[in-house]
């Protein structure tokens, strides 16, 4: 089969995400300056040669802090989405395929969780887990799992009525094999779409939690707490708010483009049509 030409949305999304993840990876090991080093002489310096993106109210280098923050923010979002998708998919496939009492009980819990606004649930859970990065990951994962379960269960419910699932059973395949081989792969498209948009929500939630002071504790930088900290100085140093904001928006754009491309790519019907 010929390799399909790369779709424009995949290209743009891929370049953006490669940039963001590259910065995050780099930021974990090296930044232009120490993101925590204070320099009161250069407080609220505008972007320029010394500090590319300026400095904050303590004279810390914004570019370095954004890089370091990318590592924290991206890592938290990624881990929470991956765990939400993992749990949610497993639960969704099981409830949707097995039905019965298990389904009813599991879905009752699920809907109860779903009834809380995600942010409120995360706030409550953070109070339990404590405000650190693992707490945030756990809280966000638990807050997002119910929506994944709902989406996957719905897809599975319609898939299990399809005749190819019956065909697999007639061949003598076990329920587990049928689920893994025929049901799960056909859920990938909705899961991929949901996961990419959830990555965006997680990034925003992490930012929002940090903004509220419940996120990763200072002085460790995240895009969210940088945005939050910029508020009092907005009139003197507008770049303090703009740069983290742009980072968040750009990442969301990239991940959504990539998600769309991924969904098209994973659909066998789209193969070789471009």
């Amino acid at each position, binding site marked *: 089969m010929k390799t399909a030409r790369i779709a424009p949305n995949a290209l743009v999304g891929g370049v953006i995400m490669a940039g963001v993840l590259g910065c995050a990876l780099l930021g974990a090991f090296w930044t232009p300056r120490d993101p925590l080093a204070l320099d009161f002489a250069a407080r609220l310096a505008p972007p320029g040669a010394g500090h590319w993106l300026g400095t904050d109210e303590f004279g810390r280098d914004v570019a370095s802090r954004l890089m370091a923050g990318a590592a924290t923010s991206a890592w938290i979002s990624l881990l929470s989405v991956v765990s939400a998708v993992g749990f949610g998919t497993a639960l969704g496939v099981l409830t949707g395929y097995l039905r019965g009492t298990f389904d009813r009980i599991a879905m009752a819990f699920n809907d109860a969780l779903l009834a809380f606004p995600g942010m409120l649930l995360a706030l409550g859970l953070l109070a339990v887990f404590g405000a650190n990065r693992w707490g945030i990951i756990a809280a966000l994962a638990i807050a997002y799992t119910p929506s994944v379960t709902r989406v996957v269960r719905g897809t599975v419910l319609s898939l299990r009525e399809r005749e190819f699932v*019956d*065909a697999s059973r007639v061949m003598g395949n076990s329920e587990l094999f049928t689920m893994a081989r025929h049901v799960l792969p*056909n859920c990938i498209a909705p899961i991929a779409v949901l996961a990419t948009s959830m990555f965006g929500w997680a990034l925003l939630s992490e930012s929002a939690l940090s903004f509220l002071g419940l996120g990763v504790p200072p002085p460790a930088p995240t895009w969210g707490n940088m945005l939050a900290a910029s508020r009092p100085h907005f009139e003197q140093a507008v770049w303090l708010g703009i740069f983290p904001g742009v980072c968040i928006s750009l990442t969301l754009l990239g991940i959504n483009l990539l998600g769309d491309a991924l969904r098209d790519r994973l659909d066998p019907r789209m193969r070789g049509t471009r």
Partner: protein
Amino acid sequence: MTKNDSPLVRVHDLSLEVAASGKRVVDSVGFEVRAGELVGIVGESGSGKTLVARALMRLEPAAIAHAGGAIEIDGRDVRALAPAALRALRGGRVGMVFQEPMTSLNPAMRIGRQLEEGLVRHRRASAAERRALIAAMLARVGIDDVERALAAYPHEFSGGMRQRIMLASVMLLRPALLIADEPTTALDALVQREVVELMVELARSEGTAVLMISHDLSMVARYTDRVVVMCEGRVVEQGATGALMAQPQHPYTRRLLDAMPRRLTAKTPLVGAPLVEVRGLTVDYPGRGGLFKRGAARRALHGIDLAIAPGEVVAVVGASGSGKTTLGRVIAGLVRASGGEVRFAGHGVGAARRGGSRDYRLNCQMVFQDPYSSLDPRMSVGGAIGEALRHVPGLGAGEKATRVAESLDEVGLGSAYALRFPHELSGGQRQRVAIARALVRRPKFVVADEPVSALDMTVRAQVLDLLADLQRRHGFACLFISHDLSAVEQIADRVVVMQDGRIVEQGLRDAIFDRPRHAYTRRLLSAIPALEATGSGGVRLRWRFDGDAQAAAVPRHAASAITAEAALVGR
């Protein structure tokens, strides 16, 4: 019919193309429909017959562009009509009955209001007059409790009833032309006949011309005055129905007529120990209960006894809801029986689930109805067929690939298809893949649940021939579930007739088809027109039983109550 009365519809040299690609989908089509005439358009999917019908009312999809020719209704070019005149034409002069009764009525609107819409738009009548007209028309199409029906929503009616209501809503406006696009394809054989006959009767008594679009030659042969045969966007042949059927001129028409299933000589009855045996089988579907109470169970099968000899093809026929599909699914192990047992080669299966019935699992396969749903869209053809070999003990990867290639050759696709994905295949090709998947294990027994009913006429004949051919070659026993009696007539050795979860009659094919004893079997059989070959390569209608001929010659009714009332306001 004299030469000088102008036709109601005149389609002249009409061409339509896909706007984006310039592909001709309808090419220089021309035909006429005279007032009160019943004309059939026959063709397979993709022949452009539906597009032509829709173009008559300017309802073709936006992606389709006009590429020449004209459509005249009442001598006026439809394409030149102003929007207001076009709206008056739609519904008022030309009515349309769609294929899918389940979606052609608005589910959120009461029947009464839905029927009233057209009257309000096209006829001047007071609310009381409208109500009287609607009630009279509903009674006319065979709705018993008219008052209740007016206040009911579409989901409260069966498919056949909805199609009657649809018909009522169209005929209410007394159009000069009724376009019926595959009006009964989605219905059962029995209901199909009732609805078509109602439509023909209504049209005759109101003097409405009918343009009946169908892929079902026998239906068209039975009810129309003239036939237009379409193939790949062209009219290949047209003429008076009887003459055209008797002496088809165009090779495509002959091919279409050849595709009509014919009875083959029966095999000698098979005797011996049954391969598959079903004893006292009952199946209950749990009813829908409330939160705390269990709903009453619905019994789908009432104590079925059935034995299938090795190499025998047993057909199960019956209307939908007769339990024939459930029977097939229980035997294939997809539905658990509530009582009774299924025995294979003398051993019970079903109770012991997987381990104990391994022999049965390897030897029982199934071909499903819908080729669009029975193949995993994410799996290549080779992968799907190869998966069936998963549980065959001691089979290497190379051997597996050979078997897959062999079975693809056998179903006429060729081993190159192993790399294709289902979406790249046509319906017929998919069904061939499904057959290859079922047969690659060389099973002794195959359940085929309506294996050809989703396919086009000529493809249906090919797939049916293939199945019959493979059955003869490999000698597997087959439970052939179908509501298509003509297919059954071709392939079955023995026929089992089911009604409401019970077997009402069973016997050798020729006995059932020629000398049915049970009244239900007679009704089923007379619902399908039989075509028999004439010496000249054509076919003609054959009435199975006395009385059928009279029933089909629908009397031209005298003015009925509705006509009198309609005359009052239809000015």
